[in-house]
Each structure stands twice: as C-alpha cells, then as structure tokens.
C-alpha cells in the first residue's frame, strides 16, 4: 500500500517535471540548424529508448535471480518493469517515425536498429501476453523469466547495431566512449529529460509492483475478480 501511494506521488511529481522539460525544450533550447525543430524530438525519443532498453535488462536480471531464488518479489518486479518498458517502447516507435519522416524522408526503414527495436516491443508484448495466458503463478513466473532473459540478450544488439550494420539511424551522440557531441544547452535539456524519464520509470514501477502485490493479497483473501491483469 505504502509503495503504491509513494509511486503515485513520484509519478505525479515526474509528470509536473515533464511539463518543465517541455517548456525548456520548446522555448529555451536552441534550434538545431540542419534539422530544424524536428531535432527537439531527440529530448523525448532518446530517454524513452534508454529506459525501454534498461527496463528489459532489469527484467532479465530479475528473471535470472528468480530462477535461482524463486523469490516472488523478483517476479513481481520483472512484470512491473516489463509493462513500463513496453510503454516506453511505444514512445520510441511513435516518436522515431515522426522524427524520421522530415529528416530521412521516410517514416520507416527496415534497417537493423529500427527492426531490432520493433523486436524489443514485440518481445514486451509476448512477455505480457504470456503472463496473462498462464494461470498457475509458479509456471507463469518460470516461463516469463525465460522470455525475460531472451529479451535482455537482445538489448546489446540494439545498442551496437549502428556499429555492426549499415543503417540510416545515426551513431550515439551521448552514450558513447568519448564525450557527448552536443552543445551545453542541448545537453542540459537532454539530461533533465533523462532524469524525468528515470523518475517516471521509478514511479510507474512502484505503482505496478504495488498493484501486483495487492492483487495477490486479494486472491489469497478469496477475491480474485478485482485487479485482473496485474499478474
């Protein structure tokens, strides 16, 4: 209960801060000369991508530990992280084409980075569908842990795909071994946005974890009809 309430407060705060990021990005961050205003999609697209991928890595780590320890908290966390990661994956897959159209001249290209990101989204969907399809809690946790580990293995391929294949997608300009290739004002806005997306991830996961816990308590009390879909 406490976790659920804390998650709601953190999410509320993060949404307020997101409004601040919107104001800073749209009104107080310089316009990039080559790409124009469309470049400002970067401040939402990249933090969402980082958290969609990190969420899957955390699902995988929790899943590995679950298979050894059988601790239901790890399974609950993996389920929460997967649902939130799926939300961020939807953001990447909508903002990406909207950015791509004016810059590349096409909404979509079947190159490695884009296709692997679509696979990540489909893996999230498969993971969530699997959790809803299996009713036995032990089997559900075990099967989804295996799928979660497969998802984690996919993430490095997404990140390094721009080095491994010829692709329309640009190389990383922030997450790379050398220093970020961004002017300080743009970097500050991006870091603010990354901080807000981090807070959103934490708030969402705390709420989703709390909901799963609540559902389990209701099921133990013999009331399985409420809070469905939180498995």
């Amino acid at each position: 209960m406490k976790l659920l309430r804390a998650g709601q407060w953190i999410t509320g705060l993060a949404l307020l801060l997101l409004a601040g990021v919107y104001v800073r990005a749209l009104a107080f961050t310089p316009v990039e000369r080559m790409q124009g205003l469309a470049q400002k999609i970067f401040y939402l697209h990249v933090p969402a991508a980082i958290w969609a991928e990190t969420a899957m890595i955390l699902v995988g780590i929790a899943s590995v530990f679950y298979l050894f320890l059988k601790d239901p908290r790890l399974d609950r966390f993996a389920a929460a992280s997967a649902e939130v990661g799926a939300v961020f994956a939807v953001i990447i897959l909508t903002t990406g084409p909207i950015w791509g159209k004016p810059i590349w001249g096409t909404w979509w290209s079947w190159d490695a980075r884009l296709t692997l990101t679509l696979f990540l989204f489909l893996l999230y969907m498969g993971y969530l569908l699997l959790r809803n399809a299996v009713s036995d809690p032990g089997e559900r946790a075990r099967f989804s842990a295996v799928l979660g580990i497969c998802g984690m293995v996919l993430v490095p391929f997404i990140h390094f795909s721009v080095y491994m294949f010829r692709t329309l997608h640009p190389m990383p300009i922030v997450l790379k071994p050398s220093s970020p290739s961004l002017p300080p004002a743009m970097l500050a806005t991006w870091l603010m946005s990354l901080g807000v997306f981090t807070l959103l991830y934490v708030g969402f996961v705390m709420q989703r974890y709390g909901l799963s816990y609540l559902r389990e308590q209701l099921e133990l009390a013999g009331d399985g009809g409420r809070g469905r879909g939180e498995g």
Partner: protein
Amino acid sequence: METVPQNGGFMIAAYIITGAILLGYALSLYLRARRSLRP
C-alpha cells in the same frame, strides 16, 4: 543564405503523442489502484 527546415508540426505531434501516452498510462495505473482498493 542557409534556411532552417520548417518542420515544427512533426515536433508538436511527437510531444503531444508522448504526453498522451505517459498521462494515459499514469491514469490507467491510478484507476487500477482505485478499483483494487475499493472496499
């Protein structure tokens, strides 16, 4: 003289869609919590 591309509509669309997705998900979690906590 070099001109900056006029593509502000794409930026506005991306910001509106992202806001709608995040607010929608936050609302969905809130409603699910309220339904689960109903006595």
